[in-house]
Every structure is written in structure tokens, then in C-alpha cells.
């Protein structure tokens, strides 16, 4: 009886393994098929000139540095705004909490492109003229900071009350308890969210092309428009953004899994 059950269990396990491998194969075939069809469609119907792509692609790729620079600086400032915003939202002071909640409400409640154009086109009316790169960074950092404020606030609140009580019971002042006990634990919850937002910002930074910042999309539009070949250049830009997000999503996943590995070692309910 016992051996029969074991044989049966093994054959069931083997069957499950086979089915899962089959599924993986079919899944990859679907991806490969879609990519193949796309390339075939482009090659057949658009009579792609390799020579054009050879000149356009490097020109577009030169925008990658600017896209990464704007995104990185913006996420840095967004993080700073979000920390300040989250502390404000958690503050018992009506003044600080009021300012923070207005910030979140207003900048989440208006379109990002409106905010960007405001910095670039509206401010000159009162005599303030900002460089396009400053406009892009201001718009992205302030807008993302508003979204991230709520994430940071949730991260801080996710630290169990018992942690604050234990710190207080040991005689820690509220500030010490926050800096040494709550913040480090909230940080682990928040870091993956920052990575997520960085990937999203890589794509939203394309909005900066509307204020003349020579990043990926601006270059694709301009080099394409000259020869009426934006279809090709937008395809190239799309692939560039896509590869960038794939790369940084992979980086982010690695950071996240490293953090959660640390959690398994260090965390649990304490």
C-alpha cells in the first residue's frame, strides 16, 4: 500500500512538472511570435532603410543620458519632498498637516503635463524663466513627491505600535524613537516603492520633450519629423524606453529581493 502511494505521488509530481514546462514553452512561443510578427510587419510594409536607422538610432540614444539624469535627480528630490510630506501628514500640528495635505491634494489632483507647462510657460509671465531641465525636474519631483508622500506615510504607519511603545518604555524621547526605531523599519517598506516610482518616472520624463528638453522622445520626434519618418523613430524610442524599464525593473527586483531576504533574517514579529 505504502509503496503504491509513493509511486502514484511521484507520477503525479512528474506530471505536474511536465505540464508546467509545457506552459512555459507555450508562453515563450507567444512572446516570440508577437515580436516576430511585429518585425516582419515593419520590414515588409515600411521598406525600412537601414541607412536611416543607422543615423537616427545613435541620435536618439544620445538622449538616454539626459532621461536618466532627469529621472535620477527628480526621484532624489521627490524622496526628500515625500519625507517632509509624510512627516507633515503625521504631524499633530494643524499648520504642518494642513500644508502637507494641501500639497498632496493639489499636486495629485492636477495633470502632470499642466504642472510642467506651468513651470515653463506660465512662470515667465511673472518674470521667472527656468531652464527646461529645471522645469522638468521641478515638475516631476514635486508631482511624484506628492504621490510618494502617501506611500511614505503608509510605510511609517505600518511599523507596529508596539515598536514605539517599547522605545518609549525604554525612556526614548519621541524624536529618538522615530529616528532610531521607526524610520529604519519604515525605510525597508518604502525602498521598493521608490524603485517602482523611478521606473515610472523614466517613462513620464518623456513629457519633458514638450518643453524642449533633448531627451529620448524629443530626439525621436525631431529626427523623424525632418524626413517624415516618425513611425520608425518612435519605434526606436519605444524600444529604448522599453529596454530601460526592463533593465531598471530587474535592478529594482534585485534590491527588493535582497531587502526581503534581510527581512527573513532580521524581521518577523520581533
Amino acid at each position: 500500500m505504502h509503496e503504491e502511494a509513493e509511486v502514484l505521488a511521484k507520477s503525479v509530481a512528474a506530471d505536474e512538472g511536465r505540464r508546467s514546462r509545457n506552459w512555459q514553452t507555450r508562453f515563450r512561443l507567444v512572446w516570440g511570435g508577437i515580436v516576430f510578427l511585429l518585425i516582419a510587419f515593419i520590414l515588409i510594409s515600411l521598406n525600412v532603410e537601414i541607412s536611416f536607422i543607422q543615423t537616427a538610432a545613435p541620435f536618439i540614444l544620445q538622449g538616454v543620458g539626459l532621461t536618466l539624469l532627469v529621472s535620477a535627480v527628480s526621484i532624489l528630490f521627490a524622496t526628500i519632498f515625500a519625507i517632509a510630506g509624510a512627516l507633515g501628514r503625521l504631524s499633530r500640528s494643524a499648520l504642518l498637516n494642513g500644508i502637507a495635505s494641501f500639497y498632496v491634494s493639489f499636486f495629485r489632483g492636477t495633470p502632470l503635463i499642466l504642472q510642467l507647462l506651468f513651470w515653463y510657460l506660465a512662470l515667465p509671465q511673472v518674470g521667472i524663466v527656468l531652464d527646461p531641465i529645471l522645469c522638468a525636474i521641478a515638475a516631476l519631483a514635486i508631482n511624484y513627491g506628492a504621490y510618494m508622500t502617501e506611500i511614505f506615510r503608509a510605510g511609517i504607519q505600518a511599523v507596529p505600535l508596539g515598536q514605539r511603545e517599547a522605545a518609549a518604555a525604554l525612556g526614548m524621547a519621541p524624536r529618538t524613537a522615530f529616528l532610531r526605531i521607526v524610520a529604519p523599519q519604515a525605510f525597508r517598506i518604502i525602498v521598493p516603492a521608490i524603485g517602482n516610482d523611478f521606473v515610472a518616472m523614466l517613462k513620464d520624463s518623456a513629457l519633458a520633450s514638450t518643453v524642449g528638453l533633448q531627451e529620448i522622445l524629443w530626439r525621436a520626434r525631431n529626427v523623424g519629423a525632418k524626413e517624415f519618418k516618425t513611425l520608425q523613430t518612435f519605434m526606436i524610442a519605444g524600444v529604448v524606453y522599453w529596454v530601460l524599464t526592463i533593465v531598471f525593473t530587474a535592478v529594482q527586483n534585485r534590491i527588493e529581493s535582497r531587502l526581503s531576504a534581510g527581512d527573513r533574517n532580521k524581521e518577523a514579529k520581533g
Partner: protein
Amino acid sequence: MSDMKRLSTTPATHPIHPAETPGVLVKPGAEPVLKATNITKWFGENHVLRGASITVWPGETVCILGRSGSGKSTFLRSLNFLEDPTDGSVEVDGVVVSADPFHTEGGERAERIREVRMRAGMVFQEFNLFPHLSVIENCVEAPVHVKGMDRKEAEAIAEKYLAKVGLAEKRDEYPSRLSGGQRQRVAIARALTMQPKVLLFDEPTSALDPTLVGEVLKVMADLAHEGRTMIVVTHEMDFAHEAADRVYYMDKGEFAEVGPPEQVIDAPKDPRTKEFLSRFRTLGAKK
């Protein structure tokens, strides 16, 4: 209940129950290390504590018994102001803090509360170890960052207490790698490293797997026998019987009966204590 009644002033004198006599390990002539006077707590319209007082001399272990919801945990948490009592006052090692019904933030009273907390270490039901810090870092965190103690010195003290709770070899481990019983023993070492005058235990074994209760109770009994001053809220009758100098039975926010364990547990006089213990025995017998 009118607001006037709620804001009634604390009696100037601290009442000492006739049964509150210094325990066997108390040095003759010693002054009480902790006096809680007329602790009263309202949660909204809910009268949780109705003027409970306690006197504890250095070297004593006292246990507070009572059914859940009787207010015993709230009382213990009022002693270090994790719960701000509505009325009453607490004195620990000469530092006096009175209830502040207006919940004034910060200032000189907050500083005195911190002084009380440094003198009264607390062990929680849920351990509340800091998950991002190793065992030794958990222990030295407050001595270094609250008392300003030298790190080396704090580590030496912590290692001594970790050895006492039998976890010297776990000093660099993180809390999540420890069993519940080990975590609670680290929590005890963490409280001890602050070198408090009195230890407060809030149902320290209630969150533990039954097989792990014993190791924690043994550490606590050892501490009691070597003359640590301890106030223990617990459901562990055997521990109370064995380790306590005095047992307080709390019912509906006041102490219904106070006395040595032989009286309160074995031969209770108060009908409320009798009823509680009879239920306890029936349940205990079924195990």
C-alpha cells in the same frame, strides 16, 4: 459622571493597604521603590480603573491577577505612563509624576515621565524586540542613546544579562531567528541592561507557545529569588504562588484582595477572588 468628579484631586497621602507589608527579601527600614496612588482611568465613558493604589518595596515580587478586562494591564501600563491615567500619581525611586487630565505635551512633565521609564523597565506580552537590530544591539540601544552610556560598557552589561537569561551565544542573532521564548528572554535582558529599579511584566507568557512558557517563567523566578523588584501581571498561578511576596487581585478596576499568595490564591476571602479562582481550578483540572 460629571467632569468635576473626574478631575478630583489626588489625595495627598498614599494609602497603604494593611496587607502591604514588606516582603522577606526587603532590607529593614527600606523605603518603597514604587508607589502608585489612586490610579484612575477613563476610556471615554468606560471607567477602567477606579482608584487603584499599590506599594512595592525594593527586593519584592508582586503579582497582579484578575480576569481579562479587569484593568490589570491598563494599571501596569499606567505605572510608566504608556497609558496616561485620568487621575492619580506614580512615584518611582523618588520621581513623582501625577496624572495630567489635559494631556499637556512635552515640557518638564514629559521629562519626568522619561525618568520614570528609565527606572521602570517593561517586558511586553508581544516582546516588541526591534527587528532591525541584533540581540546585543537591542539591549544596548537605550543605554547608549538614552542614558548616554559608553557602548563598550553597555555591551558588557548586556552580555552579563544575556548570560543570565541563557542566551549569551545568541548575541549577534536577529530576533526573527529566535523562538518566542528566546525573544522574551532577550526582552528581559534588554530591560535589565537599563539597570532599572523595578521591572514591569505585562502578561509575559501569554503570547507564547505552551512548551516555551517554562523557560521564561524560570528566568523570572530566578530574578525574583535574587531580589529583583518586579511587578508581574500574569495568569500563571503556579508562578504567582511560588515567586510572589504579595498578590493583588483586580476586579473591575480596583484591587478586591491583597495578601500573600497563600491567602489570595489558596484561601481567598473576597467573594470575587473566590469565584475567579474556582473557575480557574475547574479549567485547570480539565487539562
